C-alpha cells in the first residue's frame, strides 16, 4: 500500500507529461481518462445542443425521457445500437467499413497532444500543432471514402462537396495558426515553439493571451480561425454537405445504426479538438483570466473557489427546477431523479472546495470551461445563421479568408519584428 | 544478436531501394494511368527515405530540407499530372495507357 501511494505521489510531483517522461502506465491511464471524458462530453453535447437550440427557438426541447430530457442521449445511443445495420448491396465492402473508422481515428488521435495543464497532457510533441493539423486533415480522406463507398449519387455529391470545403478551409486555418505561432517567438531568446504546452507557456511568459496581442491582429487571426474551424467540421452555417433538406444527409446517408453514430461521435470530437486548438493558441489554454494582471496569492485563492462555485450553482439550478416540477404522481420518479442529480453535482462542488483537490483541478477546469464556451458558440451559430450556399462557401474560403489570413500573417510578422526593422532601417 | 538488432543506415537504404523497385514495376507494368501516377509517388517517397536516412547518418539537416522540397515538388507534379489525365479522359473516355497512341503510325 505504501508503495502505491509513493508511486502515485512520485508521479504527481513530476514536471513532465507522462509521454515525455516515458511512463507507459500513466500514459495508458491518461488515454483512458481522455477517452472517457470525450465520450461524456459528446453525450452532454448531444443533450445541450437540443436543449439550447430549442430554447433559442422558444420551445422546450426533449422533456420526457428523463427529468428535462437528461436521459435523452442515452435513449438515442440505445436506439442507434439496436438499429439494423444496412449495407448497400453494390457498396464496396472494405471501403464502406473502413470509412467511419478512419474518421473516428483521425478525430480521436488529435487528443494525444491537447494540453489540459502544464503536465496534464498525454504527451507533448515538439511539433504538437503540426501534428494536430495533419491528423485532422486525415478525416477528409474518411469522408471521401464514405461518399464513394455508398455507391449512390447523393452521398457522392455530399462527400465531394464536404471534402472540397474542408480542404479549402484547412488553408485559412493553417495561416491563422502560423500567425499565432509566430507570436510565441517574441520572448527573450527569440525562438518560438510548435509544442502546445510551449505555446501556452509563451502566453504566460508574455503576460497576455494571444487574442489580445498586437490588437487587433490577434483578434482577426482568432476570428479567421473561428470561422475556418466551423467550416472545417461541417457545422452550421457551413453544413451544406449534411443538411437534411439539401442532400438527404449527404455523405452518411447510407450509414445506419452504429456506423452513423461513429460519424456523429467523430464530428463532435473534431469540434472539441479544433476548439482545443483555438483555446490553446489564442485564449491562453489552462491559464485563469488575468494571470499576470491580477497576480499574487489572494487572487489565486479567490480564483481557486470558482470551480466549486460553478458546480454548486449547477446543483442549485437542479434543485430550483425540482421545486418547479409538476406535483403529479406520474412525475415522482423524474422529480427524485432530478433531485438526485442535483445532489451529485453539489457533492462534486463541495469536493472541489477542498484545497488539495482544488489546486490540482484548476488547470483542467479553466481549459474545460473555455472549450465549453466554444461549444456554446457553435450551437449559437447553428441556431442563428442561415445556411451558406456552396459557391458562397467556397468564395468565402478562398477569396475572403485566405487574403485576410495572409494579411494578418504579414502584419503580425512586421509588428513582431518592429524593433529589429527599426534598428535595421534607421541605424544601418 | 546485438549486431542483428542494430539498425544501420544500410537497412533504410535497402528499404528505400525496395520501395523504388516496387514503384518502377508499377510504372512499367500497369495499364491504369492513375495507378502509374501513384507508383511515381512511391518512387518519390523512396528517394525521400534515402535522403532523410543519409541526413541522419551525417548529422546535418540538409537531407531533411531537400526532402521537404521533394515533397513540395511531388505535390505540384501530381496536380499537373492529374490535370492532364482529366483533360485526356474528357476526349477519349478511357484511362488505359495503351490507348494513348495518337501519335502512332
Amino acid at each position, binding site marked *: 500500500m505504501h508503495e502505491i501511494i509513493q508511486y502515485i505521489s512520485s508521479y504527481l510531483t513530476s514536471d513532465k507529461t507522462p509521454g515525455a517522461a516515458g511512463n507507459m502506465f500513466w500514459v495508458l491511464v491518461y488515454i483512458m481518462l481522455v477517452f472517457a471524458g470525450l465520450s461524456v462530453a459528446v453525450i452532454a453535447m448531444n443533450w445541450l445542443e437540443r436543449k439550447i437550440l430549442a430554447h433559442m427557438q422558444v420551445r422546450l426541447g426533449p422533456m420526457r425521457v428523463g427529468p428535462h430530457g437528461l436521459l435523452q442521449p442515452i435513449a438515442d445511443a440505445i436506439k442507434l445500437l439496436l438499429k439494423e445495420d444496412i449495407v448497400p448491396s453494390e457498396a*464496396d465492402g*472494405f471501403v464502406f467499413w473502413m470509412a467511419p473508422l478512419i474518421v473516428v481515428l483521425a478525430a480521436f488521435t488529435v487528443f494525444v497532444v491537447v494540453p489540459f495543464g502544464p503536465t496534464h497532457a498525454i504527451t507533448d510533441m*515538439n*511539433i504538437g500543432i*503540426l501534428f494536430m493539423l*495533419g*491528423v485532422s*486533415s486525415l478525416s477528409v*480522406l474518411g469522408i*471521401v*471514402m464514405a461518399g*464513394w463507398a455508398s455507391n449512390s449519387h447523393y452521398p457522392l455529391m455530399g462527400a*465531394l462537396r464536404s471534402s472540397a470545403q474542408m480542404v479549402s478551409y484547412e488553408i485559412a486555418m493553417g495561416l491563422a495558426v502560423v500567425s499565432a505561432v509566430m507570436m510565441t517567438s517574441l520572448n527573450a531568446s527569440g525562438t518560438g515553439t*510548435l509544442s502546445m504546452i510551449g505555446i501556452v507557456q509563451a502566453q504566460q511568459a508574455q503576460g497576455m493571451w494571444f487574442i489580445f496581442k498586437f490588437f487587433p491582429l490577434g483578434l482577426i487571426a482568432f476570428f479567421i480561425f473561428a470561422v475556418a474551424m466551423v467550416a472545417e467540421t461541417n457545422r452550421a452555417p457551413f453544413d451544406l454537405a449534411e443538411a437534411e433538406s439539401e442532400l438527404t444527409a449527404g455523405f452518411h446517408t447510407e450509414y445506419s445504426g452504429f456506423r452513423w453514430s461513429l460519424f456523429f461521435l467523430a464530428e463532435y470530437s473534431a469540434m472539441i479538438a479544433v476548439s482545443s486548438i483555438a483555446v490553446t493558441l489564442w485564449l491562453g489554454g489552462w491559464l485563469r483570466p488575468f494571470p499576470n494582471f491580477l497576480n499574487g496569492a489572494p487572487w489565486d485563492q479567490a480564483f481557486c473557489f470558482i470551480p466549486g462555485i460553478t458546480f454548486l450553482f449547477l446543483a442549485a439550478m437542479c434543485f430550483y427546477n425540482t421545486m418547479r416540477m409538476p406535483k403529479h404522481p406520474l412525475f415522482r420518479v423524474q422529480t427524485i431523479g432530478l433531485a438526485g442529480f442535483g445532489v451529485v453535482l453539489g457533492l462534486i462542488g463541495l469536493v472541489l472546495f477542498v484545497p488539495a483537490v482544488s489546486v490540482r483541478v484548476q488547470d483542467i477546469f479553466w481549459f474545460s470551461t473555455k472549450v465549453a464556451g466554444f461549444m456554446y458558440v457553435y450551437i449559437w451559430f447553428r441556431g442563428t445563421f442561415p445556411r451558406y450556399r456552396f459557391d458562397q462557401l467556397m468564395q468565402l474560403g478562398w477569396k475572403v479568408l485566405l487574403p485576410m489570413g495572409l494579411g494578418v500573417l504579414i502584419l503580425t510578422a512586421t509588428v513582431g519584428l518592429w524593433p529589429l526593422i527599426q534598428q535595421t532601417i534607421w541605424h544601418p | 544478436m546485438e549486431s542483428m538488432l*542494430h539498425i*544501420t*543506415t544500410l537497412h533504410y537504404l535497402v*528499404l528505400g*531501394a525496395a*520501395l523504388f*523497385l*516496387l*514503384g518502377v*514495376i*508499377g510504372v*512499367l*507494368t*500497369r*495499364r*491504369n494511368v*492513375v*495507378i502509374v501516377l*501513384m*507508383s511515381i509517388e512511391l518512387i518519390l*517517397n523512396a528517394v*525521400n527515405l534515402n535522403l*532523410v536516412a543519409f541526413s*541522419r*547518418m*551525417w*548529422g546535418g*539537416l*540538409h537531407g531533411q*530540407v531537400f526532402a*521537404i*522540397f521533394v*515533397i513540395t515538388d511531388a505535390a*505540384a*507534379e*501530381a*496536380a499537373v499530372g*492529374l*490535370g492532364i489525365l*482529366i*483533360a485526356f*479522359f*474528357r476526349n477519349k473516355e*478511357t484511362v*488505359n495507357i*495503351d490507348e494513348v497512341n495518337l501519335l502512332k503510325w
Partner: protein
Amino acid sequence: MLIGGILVITRKNPVHSALALIVALLAQASIYLMLYAPFVAGVQIILYAGGIMVLFLFVIMLVNVERSMKERQFNSQWVVGIIAATALGGLFIAVYTKGNNIFPNHALRMTTGEAPNTQGVAIMLYGQYMFAFEIASLLLLVAIIGAVVMAKKRI
C-alpha cells in the same frame, strides 16, 4: 510500408490502391519519426496523406472506374518490365555490397539534438536554401495555373 507498396501496384480497384498508398505514406511518416525528423514527418502527413491523396481520390471518382476494372490489368510488356526491374535490383545489390566500406561506422550518428529540429530546418530553409525556397514557390504557382488550365473545359 512494403505491404502497402505491393498492394498499390497489384490491386485492380484504383480506390484500393489509393488506400494502400495512404497506408504506405503514414508508415513512411513514422519511419521519419524514427530517423529523428519530426518536421518532415508532420509535413508528410499534412501534404502527402492529407492533400495529394485527397486529390487522387477526387480524380479517381471523376474518372470512370467500373469500365477500367473489367479490362486487363497488366500491360502487354509486363515481362520486360519485370526483367528491367530485376536488373535494377541487381544493380542496387551490387552497389550496396561493393560500397559497404564507404559508410564509416554503421551506426547512425545523432543530429544536433531533438528539440531544435524544426528550428534547424527553418534556419537552413530560410538561410542557406532561400533561393531554392523561392523557386519552389514559383514552381507551385506554375503548377496551380497549369492544373487549372489543363482541367478547364474551354480555354
